[in-house]
């Protein structure tokens, strides 16, 4: 944890409510996000208990499973979930814009410009917690290899028609959520703790109720008391006042309320299915409200400048998945091959570096962290001296003397970067350390192509500028070898992809 966020936590602990650690919203927030609150059955793998979902806070849909261990009931539930979620996930497929993209022509090997479709928007899904994101992945894995009656007429337990398709979408969203800065699938606890620090630890911030208690404590309560009430407060029946945000349920709820109701359902007591439904809904409802409270808090923050750039990548990712589905490609494999895995990792590393740089540029509070670490500094221009490079066509290389109160970790020849007011980037080199806090920089780019620098690209005396030691658009490492040159350490060339088999249907599945 950086010292600045530690300090923010201490301020929060001292004043009893959350303190900001960001001044702008660093993640995309859709106009109509799909809020999804899932619950799972304890001890079972991929046996959902119920879900509350929707894009309208006043009209959530609730689906439950009266006996989560019954395969047919589970499939019926997943079928309804598919019918509810797919219209949202597919809602942005058809409205596209055409963009130009460079591609290598497979025949000539030349770089050519091609036109490609890019979906104008992408559907966003919000879940309460980090384990909720994992559960979306798990649901996707449990569904995408199922076979429907149409695909395999002889299947013993065919899945409802659109269940495998939903599995592929959820897998895609779950996978995308691992990319730093992506916003297709986000957890509310992750979103809120990115923007505010509470007076408790990061571990305790995983509890959505406790986190919101610090952000908006009820009247007369401090954050700590309100959070404690959210964590431990129980009613006369021993049930938590704020049920866990899932996907796991509270053991006391399971043992005292849910298990007897399910037992009644098993015995065929009339109305028992409805009873289970209401019990599960009672656990979902408070989290549903908390999700929208979180959305409201986030909407109050202005969007950061680089968010649309990153959202564009999410739209690209969405479009790619749409294209793969339309091309009737098989579902995502159970395990990535070495080539795909290496590409994904390299891409995530690059996105992380990019995210770190962009968040700092967008937000003075994040930049403050980098300034404290000596990776950036705010400087005032003392003097500008025009100079030109040697060579046939001399280019402007002005020398700028600056003074800073910060303590950057600099040595001669270091490259520096700053953002121009137009959003373009300018590079400079450190020429000389003139004195305490005084540096002479040579601007080496971002001044246009002419002999004279473009207006506004060279600072004037008295200007304040923020220089960073890190690049603003970091490039990835060296390129990876072609798939057919995969080294033996990584399993050698992957060869032809073989189709994944469907999950076997075993007698044991009937639990």
């Amino acid at each position: 944890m950086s010292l600045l966020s530690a300090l923010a936590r201490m301020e929060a602990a001292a004043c009893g409510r959350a303190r900001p650690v960001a001044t702008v919203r660093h993640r995309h927030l859709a106009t109509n996000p799909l809020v999804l609150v899932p619950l799972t059955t304890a001890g079972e793998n991929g046996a959902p208990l119920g879900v509350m979902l929707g894009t309208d806070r006043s009209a959530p849909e609730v689906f439950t499973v009266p006996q989560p261990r019954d395969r047919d009931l589970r499939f019926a539930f997943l079928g309804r979930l598919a019918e509810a979620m797919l219209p949202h996930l597919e809602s942005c497929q058809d409205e596209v814009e055409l963009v130009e993209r460079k591609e290598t022509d497979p025949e000539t090997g030349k770089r050519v410009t091609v036109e490609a479709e890019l979906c104008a928007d992408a559907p966003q899904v919000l879940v309460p917690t980090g384990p909720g994101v994992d559960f979306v992945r798990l649901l996707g894995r449990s569904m995408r290899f199922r076979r429907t009656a149409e695909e395999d007429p002889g299947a013993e337990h065919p899945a409802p028609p659109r269940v495998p398709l939903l599995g592929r979408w959820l897998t895609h969203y779950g996978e995308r959520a691992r990319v730093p800065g992506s916003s297709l699938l986000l957890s509310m606890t992750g979103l809120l703790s990115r923007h505010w620090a509470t007076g408790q630890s990061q571990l305790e911030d995983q509890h959505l109720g406790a986190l919101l208690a610090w952000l908006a404590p009820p009247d007369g309560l401090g954050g700590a008391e309100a959070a404690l009430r959210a964590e431990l407060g129980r009613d006369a029946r021993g049930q938590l006042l704020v049920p866990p945000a899932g996907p796991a349920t509270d053991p006391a709820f399971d043992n005292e309320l849910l298990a007897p109701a399910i037992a009644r359902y098993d015995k065929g007591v009339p109305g028992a299915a409805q009873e289970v439904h209401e019990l599960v809904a009672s656990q979902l409802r408070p989290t549903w409200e908390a999700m929208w409270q979180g959305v409201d808090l986030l909407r109050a923050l202005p969007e950061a400048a680089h968010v649309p750039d990153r959202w564009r990548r999410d739209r690209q990712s969405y479009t790619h998945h749409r294209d793969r589905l339309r091309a009737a490609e098989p579902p995502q494999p159970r395990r990535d091959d070495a080539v795909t895995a290496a590409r994904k990792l390299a891409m995530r590393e690059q996105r992380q570096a990019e995210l770190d740089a962009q968040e700092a540029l967008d937000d003075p509070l994040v930049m403050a962290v980098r300034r404290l670490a000596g990776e950036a500094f705010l400087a005032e221009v003392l003097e500008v001296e025009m100079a030109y490079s040697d060579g046939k066509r001399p280019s402007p290389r002005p020398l700028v003397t600056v003074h800073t109160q910060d303590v950057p970790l600099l040595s001669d020849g270091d490259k520096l970067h700053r953002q121009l007011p137009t959003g373009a980037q300018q590079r400079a080199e450190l020429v000389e350390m003139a004195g305490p806090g005084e540096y002479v920089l040579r601007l080496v780019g971002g001044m246009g192509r002419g002999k004279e620098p473009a207006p506004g690209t060279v600072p004037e005396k008295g200007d304040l500028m923020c220089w960073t030691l890190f690049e603003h658009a970091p490039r990835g490492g060296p390129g990876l070898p072609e798939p057919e040159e995969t080294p033996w350490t990584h399993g050698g060339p992957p060869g032809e992809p073989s189709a994944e088999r469907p999950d076997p249907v075993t007698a044991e599945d009937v639990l």
Partner: protein
Amino acid sequence: MTSSSLPKQTPPQGTAPADRQATVQRLAELRGGPDVPQRPLDARALAALAANPGCRRRALLDGAGVDKSAVAHALGSPAPFGQSQFALVRGNAFEAAVKADGGEVLLALLCEHTGAARPDPAEVTVPQLTADGPAGRAFRTRQALIEADGGRWTLLDHPLLALEVAGSTAYLEPDALAVHPDGTVSIIEIKSFPILDGSADPVKVGAAARQAAVYALALEGLRTVRESALLVCPKDFSNLPTGGLLQLRKQIAATRRQLRRLTRLEEIAAELPEGVHFAPDQEPAALTAAVESVPAAYAPECLSTCELAFHCRDRARSAGDVVALGRSVRGELGGLTTVDEVLAAASGDPDNAAAKDPAAATLRRAAALRAEALAAAEPATAPGPEAR
């Protein structure tokens, strides 16, 4: 597969029979009398040991076998741990299914992973281990291990092992042990979390490995323990068992070090005031005082492993301890340990003692940078519409 003998455990000091008897008696007093049963060192206590080996309060209460859950309840900060009966039923059903046919499935999985030939079920010895009380069961287990025939497989179902932890005997119950025909022992752990597409939750696998490592330590001196334990879990979304080998070498070394570093219980107990004990049915004030008389080292990680964590958190917060905000917070704070000290140092008040700490200059700088950035962005950052 290699199997090697583990270095022998150094004999703990101060365990002459008379001393031992005194310690056992002292620990019984701490529990509240000889009639209060000693709680076994379960998986959660072991996890707590790994998460926070430096906490004396946890060491003493776990070592003495005090029912921490009851103590936490009596203190008014009950632990929210509980097990859903769904998980319990599922776990028990899975274990029963795996062991149903006299352990045939278990041995088949073990042979598959170690490359051994599958034995004929008739040639497997499954000794009877039931006895009265933990000491009796541990004795039967010991006998069975010593007597296991060379050249035959022996499967021990729910054996009981004894291990010396910080001066007291802890009883441990592995799910199963298998003695190979070559005389070595494999530890078998049956868990109900799934192995999905060949991988399982690393946190849960880590906990299982830690548990198995403790069993390996308890088996030292009896038989050579194989370095990899067998983990048996349900496969994917089914109830079919599948297995994987857990490498124990590092876990054994780490656990051995932690156990050895544990401050001896007698030393901690000796610092307690006269007559103090932890029986949950005493006066709440007396119990609170008793618990407070042993120093704790609270960290947020305790919340998931120790029953007393909410009590300790309450104390840490009211004392303004910075560790309550996370262990990583402490990194750059020098000698400053409370929230008030840190904020005083950051405020730049030169009269405050905290301002003389080496970390104060950086803190002042951090606070100035933070204030500058916040001032530039007001009022957009207020948390919620009704905030100041």
